[in-house]
């Protein structure tokens, strides 16, 4: 049983279908993850002065609450395997909903569960990236901005944001690539993404060599595309 190039050609259409789904889960997951990550990341440093909000007392209890909430989310997600999160969301969450509410026909689509899992999981890691980058912005710059009399919103938009975003790009690239590869785990909840397609084809023709090589190359192409996009982003930003 030698290497048959024709096997690759034959299996290409279903594999490409799988790759398309992988790409879809990754991009929607990352987009949602960015939103969650920015909220949770900023939430973790609320009231600490890094966002120009030195605690003057008035909103202190609120910012403490926000910090604990965000920290709890990050620790909870970071501390459990993504595969368990996916299983929980797909199998256990609908039961939970049924037990707690009267919605009898509640169903969770496998694809929805996959996208939400990536959103939440990436969100927790991105929160730490956001927090780290914002905290790394020199406090003197925050004070310089405040001393000019600008609002906190302006401070975040024009001073902290642009500096922090440049520092976020390399670790974000890491996280995006990890998230893309994590989609292969959704084989366990039956999402027809690239790895599952490969598995199914392999189960019918037993051409492990050709199939897994092709699957690997397809992942490599997608991760390279992500990395290149981020590198372009980084280069476009002014170096200082």
């Amino acid at each position, binding site marked *: 049983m030698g290497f048959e190039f024709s096997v690759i050609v034959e299996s290409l259409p279903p594999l490409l279908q799988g790759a398309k789904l992988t790409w879809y889960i990754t991009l929607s997951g990352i987009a949602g993850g960015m939103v969650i990550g920015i909220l949770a990341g900023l939430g973790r440093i609320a009231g600490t002065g890094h966002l120009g909000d030195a605690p003057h007392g008035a909103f202190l209890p609120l910012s403490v609450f926000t910090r604990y909430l965000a920290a709890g989310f990050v620790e909870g997600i970071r501390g459990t395997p993504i595969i368990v999160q996916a299983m929980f969301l797909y199998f256990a969450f609908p039961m939970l909903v049924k037990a707690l509410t009267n919605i009898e026909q509640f169903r969770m689509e496998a694809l929805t569960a996959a996208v939400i899992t990536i959103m939440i999981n990436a969100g927790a890691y991105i929160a730490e990236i956001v927090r780290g980058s914002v905290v790394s912005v020199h406090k003197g*710059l925050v004070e310089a*901005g405040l001393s000019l*009399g600008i609002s906190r919103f*302006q401070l975040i938009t*024009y001073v902290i944001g642009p500096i922090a975003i440049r520092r976020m790009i390399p670790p974000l690239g890491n996280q995006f690539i990890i998230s893309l590869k994590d989609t292969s785990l959704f084989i366990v909840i039956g999402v027809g993404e690239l790895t599952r397609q490969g598995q199914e084809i392999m189960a019918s023709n037993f051409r492990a060599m050709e199939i897994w090589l092709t699957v690997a190359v397809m992942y490599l192409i997608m991760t390279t595309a992500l990395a290149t996009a981020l590198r372009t982003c980084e280069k476009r930003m002014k170096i200082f």
Partner: protein
Amino acid sequence: MPNIIEMKNVCKSFGETEVLHNIDFHIAEGEVVVIIGPSGSGKSTLIRCINCLEMITKGELIVDGIRIPDELTRMRQIRLEVGMVFQQFNLFPHMTALENVAFGPRKARGMRRGKAEKIALELLDKVGLSEFSDKLPGNLSGGQQQRVAIARALAVNPKVMLFDEPTSALDPEMIGEVLDVMKSIAKDSGMTMAVVTHEMGFASQVGDRLIFMDEGRIVEEGKPGEVMKKPGSDRLRDFLSHVKHH
């Protein structure tokens, strides 16, 4: 002249440690007050309290008629009227010199870009840096950066300027250029200034009043020449001898 800044019985604590004890302090309009004292004496904290970078823990602060802590919501108004220059310059590293200076007028004063940049260019010219307007801070020397920082603070058109050890982070040969700019601001535009510094020459030439702080208290104050010639306390005498010999 009326007082533009007043502190009444002000205390400031960081956690358990009180670093300013019952300070009574004022600056009249147009006055240049120089604050000296050993490190840890609370002089930086004192001027940082004026623009609310540090919040006073007790007492009352009145800046241009705005009362802290009663009118906390008007804190931004205070910051618009009080410019600050920092020891470490703190220029925005992602903006050119011109953008740094135009930033305040544009964002804090809501000016249109063209007008803000015109003001910024004039100020850069005033501090002798008009040909460096498109340089990023990383490509400027320490002295140049500090002069841009002074222009940036002036651009918002404040009534008072605070200087927190503006020459302490500079190489010796660059101190003069920064002090010259500060002198011209004080003399030409009659700016009200509070300057924390160890530059005794500047204090006696430009200062209207000298304040010596130690351990969170104002120990001595008066005309710079007189206070320096005849220090009333051992602590100031001791401090002056140390400053002069370096």
